[in-house]
């Protein structure tokens, strides 16, 4: 293959990482499913895909912020479960929803402070938080149940002007994240911190006057808030609080981020990549459901896709 084309496909240009390759995978998957299964292109199925992908996509978008800055957030899965449990506490929506987000901010702050102030490795810090929250949610709601505020159910399952809510959620989440990542100093500083870490000079961003610790804490807060958002959406979908609904979400989110070309070492990555990564996951499981492939094989195929797509990346260390 032409070298320039290869570089373009594998993200050799720029710091957006590889997102063209997963985009092509997405289009191929969609094309394949259109040809193979008559059901794929039907509106109900497509809406189903969006509804399926949305919680993973929202969580993964939050995760992207942390990963670009060189961190990792494993606590999001439990936080999603916890958020559904809080919302199902049988109270008024105007108290429970702010309470859920306030709690998410607290979790993000704790993650960020433990990582930046106590110098705990992000994997350990957020893994600990994952366990803490898992214990807390099982205490709060040992089994699924409870009733949700009406506003949550409506905002998830309604369809104002015939537009399904899932689409509106997706647009709002992506637009918010876009503004934060590409339209603010904060976003550029995330790339700066991650780039410094990836090239072995963690001081670099600070030497430019970037307040790196505060920026990092904010990234964890954003990740938590997006996880809480995903939690609100999931609660509305299943109409209950469930201590297990978020299990494994952190790994799916990281999978989506990685397929989207964001480098786990930090400094390289993109929002479109993450959205595409989440779509790849959703199309895979939807397509395999439509073609009646065993769910066990599905998981294995997910792993194989992750390996193949990420393996394409030119894993050059920036700047070295």
């Amino acid at each position: 293959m032409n070298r320039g084309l290869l570089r373009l496909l594998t993200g050799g240009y720029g710091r957006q990482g590889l997102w063209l390759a997963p985009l092509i995978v997405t289009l191929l998957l969609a094309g394949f499913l259109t040809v193979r299964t008559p059901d794929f292109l039907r509106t109900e199925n497509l809406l189903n895909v969006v509804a399926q992908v949305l919680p993973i996509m929202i969580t993964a978008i939050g995760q992207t912020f942390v990963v670009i800055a060189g961190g990792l957030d494993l606590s999001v899965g439990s936080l999603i479960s916890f958020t559904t449990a809080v919302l199902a506490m049988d109270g008024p929506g105007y108290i429970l929803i702010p309470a859920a987000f306030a709690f998410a901010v607290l979790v993000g702050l704790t993650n960020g402070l433990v990582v930046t102030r106590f110098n705990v490795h992000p994997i350990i810090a957020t893994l600990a938080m994952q366990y803490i929250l898992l214990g807390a949610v099982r205490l709060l709601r040992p089994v699924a149940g409870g009733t949700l505020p009406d506003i949550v159910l409506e905002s998830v399952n309604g369809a104002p002007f015939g537009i399904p809510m899932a689409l509106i959620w997706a647009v709002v989440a992506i637009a918010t994240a876009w503004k934060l990542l590409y339209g603010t100093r904060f976003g550029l500083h995330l790339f700066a911190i991650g780039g410094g870490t990836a090239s072995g000079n963690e001081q670099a961003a600070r030497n430019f006057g970037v307040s790196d610790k505060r920026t990092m804490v904010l990234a964890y807060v954003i990740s938590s808030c997006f996880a809480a958002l995903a939690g609100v959406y999931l609660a509305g979908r299943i109409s209950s609080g469930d201590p297990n609904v978020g299990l494994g979400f952190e790994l799916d989110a990281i999978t989506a981020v990685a397929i989207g070309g964001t480098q786990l070492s930090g400094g390289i990555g993109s929002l479109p990549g993450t959205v595409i990564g989440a779509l790849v996951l959703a199309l895979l499981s939807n397509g395999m459901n439509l073609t009646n492939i065993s769910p066990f094989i599905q998981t294995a195929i997910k792993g194989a896709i992750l390996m193949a797509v990420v393996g394409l990346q030119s894993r050059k260390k920036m700047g070295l």
Partner: protein
Amino acid sequence: MPNLVELSHISKSFGGSLAVDHVSLELFGGSVHALMGENGAGKSTLMKVLAGVYQPDEGEIFKNGHKVSFANPREALEFGISTVFQEMTLLPNLTIAENMYLGREPLTAFGSIDYRKMNSDTQAALSELGLSLPPQTLVSGLSIAERQFVEIAHGVKADASIFVLDEPTAALNAADVEVLNKHIRRLRDAGKAIVYISHRMEEIFNICDTVTVLKDGKLVGTRPLSEMTPSSLVAMMVGRELRDLFPSRGQGTNGLLLDVKHFKIGASTKPFSLQVHGGEIVGLAGLEGQGQQKFLRSLIGQFQPFSGTVAIKGKALPLPVNPAWGVRRLRSMGVAFVPEDRKEEGLFLGLPIAHNIAIGLHSARSELAIAKNYRQLIADSIKSLNVRTTGPQAHAGSLSGGNQQKVLLGRYLAEGVDILLVEEPTRGVDVGAKSEIYKLLRDFAAKGGAVIVLSRETVELIGLCDRILVVHGNTVVSEMAGASAAEQDILNAALNAEAVVEQE
């Protein structure tokens, strides 16, 4: 003339050891001020205080007579102090423009970063320095020289009046050094004050007008360079003369250890031959990139020469050498290769000194052999190398450049080889350590070993080597005895290679 910046009685200590001890320094506009001293003398620490990286324990900084202090380099830059450090400080995954504006990005009316203004202003700053790089280029795509020019442009852009260059030429080739000097002169002529840290004498005398010497964290003195000579400057730095830097030469040679014949680096280059005997040190001189390094690296297989025969202690080394096992192959024949870049190619900076020394011995044994600890040998090495350290368990990365270089050399000396191929034995190493390294090499030769040294520093080759081979255009163009060689002769030979009859 009033000074631009005054550092007054600055002290800074790290964990009990005083790195800078009441040093005062005045900088004037339109002047290039050399800051010299052995590694660990406190030059970099002093400059990091000036740049806002460190806060001084004692002392004050005055800018135009007003007392100032900075919490970080960004604040120092706002006060007009721009620093190009030894280590790369630019972020590789950001564009040139983003690096220039990081931490104080201009915003549009909507609160987004104003990329249009950033890029056009950066373009203007770059072209002011005569650079034609697009501002949207990622820094990871730039050469080391270009990155340094970008850092200088960063200072120009911020309208800095003081530029600190900490060993800017350590990684540059001759052509880039010339471009850098041009920029420095331009800044000087614009009335800026420049601090220039380097270990290379020629550069200091070439570009600087004043010199301040530090030793063990204390100020030795500040002099106009017109009053100094290289040897008086070295004397000031170490308290002894330049000729004392080098050990006395070898006392004759014994058997032929390395015999290279009809060696052609490329298809159309002139063949050359060279012989190295036990007991002698042979230097390879020449301009940058003329094939000296290609020759050495073809012996370990990192470069594939066109043709030639190489015999080591009478045994033929078949060419080309497979890079996968080139170094091990040479090792088994009693040859060690000491690479140029001790940080990247030589040492394991995150591992203890003990491992760094013993790793050569370990690698000579079977992969699954139970590792000996070599404790006594390591202790002896550290002692005979005179490595200044807290102990064999200290990380190699915690040592000064000179001590790192000694550890690297010690690894190969511990292996008990007969031939040493050394690239740049003293790059970025202070004068005191240089002298010790020269002595180590000379001792090795005196015990019957053969040494080939490749160096950019002509003075070093003249002082150290028994014979000097001048390389030009991928072939040896001239040979002279170290004792009688003069810098000018070597330079002439390297420049007028075509006029010299080929040795054969």
